[in-house]
């Protein structure tokens, strides 16, 4: 195959069903050489499904893919790679315990260890990465794992590069490097990039053309200059777009609103601390944090930022009582919690909202009523009444008490989890509380968390979205390399500034080239 020629890809009437759900509904797209295409849409719009069909990971039920004029009813991953189609998945599809060079070599042409390591070093250098070839990938950061995958795809000489939400879990600087590479890639030899994202600013920054999907269909195609309002309306439908503009687009305005709230409640600063960490060092099976000292006050909303693996995950778990306290003190409401079990934390009013909702938060096989029973063990009255009153009327959980939790959509899972937070919670620890949720659910989550905070609950949450952290919190903690590198009021902070803290370069100039 002549890899010098511009690539020409056409998707025709791609339809994919999962049970009764139509993930892709007759999607037809022509991709143009030399361009970076943005593929936008809210969660569940069918973006990833379409891309996985194109990369050969799944077979479509109807439709075909035409590459360089040749029709393919379905592709396998190997066949797609053979045609020069490569995908960088949202969660790195790699082999964590295997060495970097082994990850690099897998699926590629036969190479000796030395050949593979040399080729990896060569590519790393030309792309500006520094990847340790013999280290197992599980010790890499998310950005490094992504870079390794990119190097592998470049080595395979892909002509159509698909990136599925590539900026999740990496810092703004790492994002800039990535976008630079993508621009070069597309400008060269008429190759194509598809950037799957739900973040509008990214698409605006990078893409020559934006395709919008909604409910499995391609509903619009836009060229610059983009009209953000129109794009949002196409993505979410007219009503939801209005709600979406509030937090997502006008983050500055929302931040101002928070500042007003903080200013209106000056007594908070004088209130006695709810929780006090004095050189508290958390550890779990895999890692350990150095000692951390800070105090949390009632009613505070604290956003925790950090690149994936930066240590904020363990910090949140430690705060919630799910990690061991190796040394130091963690005083909560006057009692030292070191060595205490989860039950003691619960009694002290601590509640944890996990990011993996189904795996850690819910019992997939148990009914919604069972969840109510487990969540409110002291409720002796009519359970059905509690369920209707609290779960259905207040939190809009589906009124199906006998349905198993596994039947819930992402948004409803979070609604169920929200209704399980006791109203007298004193410290709520929320791990990425809006990850993967649609706009309406996000709004509901934040309404409830802010309502809790207004009644005196300290809310500590993490997010991969710095805009969300800036918009929603009054105080921000940043972790880098397992250390707390910043503890600052949210007012006056910017995405760039947080990004520098997240990559440990706060002290240096912002222009210094990233490591």
């Amino acid at each position: 195959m002549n890899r010098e020629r511009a690539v020409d890809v056409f998707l025709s009437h791609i339809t994919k069903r999962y049970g009764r759900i139509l993930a892709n509904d007759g999607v037809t797209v022509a991709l143009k050489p030399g361009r970076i295409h943005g593929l936008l849409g809210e969660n569940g719009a069918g973006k990833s499904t379409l891309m996985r069909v194109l990369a050969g990971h799944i077979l479509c039920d109807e439709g075909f893919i035409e590459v360089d004029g040749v029709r393919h009813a379905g592709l396998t991953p190997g066949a797609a790679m053979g045609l020069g189609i490569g995908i960088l998945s949202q969660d790195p599809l790699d082999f964590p315990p295997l060495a970097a060079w082994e990850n690099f070599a897998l699926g590629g042409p036969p190479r000796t260890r030395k050949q593979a390591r040399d080729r990896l070093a060569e590519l790393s250098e030309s792309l500006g990465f520094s990847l340790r070839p013999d280290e197992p990938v599980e010790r890499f950061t998310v950005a490094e794992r992504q870079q390794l995958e990119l190097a592998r795809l470049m080595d395979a000489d892909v002509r159509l590069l698909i990136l599925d939400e590539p900026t999740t879990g990496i810092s703004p600087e790492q994002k800039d490097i990535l976008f630079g590479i993508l621009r070069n890639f597309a400008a060269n030899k008429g190759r194509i990039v598809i950037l799957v994202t739900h973040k509008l600013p990214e698409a605006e920054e990078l893409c020559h053309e934006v395709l919008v999907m909604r409910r499995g269909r391609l509903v619009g195609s836009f060229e610059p200059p983009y009209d953000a309002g129109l794009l949002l309306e196409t993505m979410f439908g007219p009503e939801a777009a209005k709600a979406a503009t509030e937090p997502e687009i006008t983050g500055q305005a929302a931040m101002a609103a928070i500042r007003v709230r903080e200013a209106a409640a000056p007594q908070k600063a004088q209130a006695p601390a709810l929780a006090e960490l004095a050189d508290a060092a958390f550890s779990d099976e895999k890692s350990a944090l150095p000692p951390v000292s800070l105090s949390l006050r009632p009613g505070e909303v604290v956003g925790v930022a950090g690149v994936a693996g930066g240590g904020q995950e363990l910090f949140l778990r430690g705060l919630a009582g799910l990690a061991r306290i190796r040394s130091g003190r963690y005083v909560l409401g006057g009692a030292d919690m070191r060595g205490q079990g989860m039950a003691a934390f619960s009694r002290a009013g601590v509640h944890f909202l996990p990011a993996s909702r189904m795996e850690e938060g819910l019992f997939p096989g148990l009914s919604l009523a069972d969840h109510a029973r487990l969540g409110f063990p002291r409720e002796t009255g009519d359970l059905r009444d509690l369920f209707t009153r609290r779960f259905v009327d207040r939190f809009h959980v589906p009124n199906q008490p006998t349905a198993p939790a596994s039947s819930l959509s992402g948004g409803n899972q979070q609604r169920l989890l929200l209704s399980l937070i006791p109203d007298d919670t004193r410290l709520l620890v929320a791990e990425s509380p809006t990850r993967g949720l649609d706009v309406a659910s996000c709004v509901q989550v934040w309404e409830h968390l802010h309502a809790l905070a207004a009644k005196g609950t300290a809310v500590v949450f993490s997010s991969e979205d710095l805009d969300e952290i800036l918009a929603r919190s009054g105080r921000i903690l940043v972790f880098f390399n397992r250390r707390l590198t910043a503890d600052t009021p949210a007012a006056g902070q910017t995405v760039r500034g947080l990004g520098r803290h997240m990559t440990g370069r706060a002290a240096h100039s912002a222009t210094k080239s990233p490591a």
Partner: protein
Amino acid sequence: MDVLAATLAAVLFAGAPLALAALGETLSERAGVINLSVDGTILFSAMTAFVVAQGTGDAWTGMLGGALAGAFVAGVLALVGLWLRAPILAVGFILTLLCRDLAYFLGHAHARQPGPDLGVWTIPVVSDIPFLGTVIGRQSPVVFLSIVAMVAASFFLRRTRAGLHLRAAGESPKAAFARGIPVERLKVLYCLVGGAFSGLAGAAYSLGVKPGWGHPQGAEGAGWIALAIVIFGGWRPSRVVLGAYFFALIQVMGIHLQDFLPGLSSTLFQIAPFPVMILTLLFINIRRSGRFRDAVQQIPLLGRLAGKPPVGAPGALAGVLDQDAA
């Protein structure tokens, strides 16, 4: 000195079939297939190997028969568990019981009859070296087979492309699929290879370590030990084989101690290896306990020794055979 050499020779001899079976299961599990039928496979192929050897008069043809019998049992597991998607752990369990009873039933006519065995190989120069000659110079072929198998499996997994594909399929089947590696085919292949190793182990018992066929044969329970050794050896061929020899060592020690302590019941010596094994494994794996690591980190020298926790199960099996220590 002579006693020591003889003991070591006995350990190598007694541990060889165990090492073969554990190596086979290691390959199978590294590819993502848990084959719980090892114990039954060993008995079934021990019987097959003996019958074939008796019929043909050639012990090596018997070995081949044993390997094929083992691969056949694994083939049944692959067909039902991998291809037809029945729960593979349950199928493995039942296959164990089925194969054991089938072996006693089919082999009944050949029980307690004389037959060929693999004999002893004398290595020309080595056998004349005083100590080494006793340990390894005059040994059953199954000892050499187990050592060669260990080196080969280690090399294969670590240094070859096919071995890398095997590990990739077992670590992240989804990622391997996305790279065009035929995961399902590899799983079937290494399930069969693992079965063939178990078959060789069975043949090694009936043609070497416990020659002949009968009820009981003497190899009962070896498969379960092999399964445990794989887990505690961290799925690494060299450690797994060391584990097999270690178990053989405590068995041989038990026999020796029986001579020194005649007052104790012989049953005690037969069951002693099991608790000793558990204690040893506890000692090896205590590093995985977070509390233990926290405790020793305060102590200067021990803290260094504690180091990193040992490797866990292949990704595809994580959570099934290997839970995270708290």
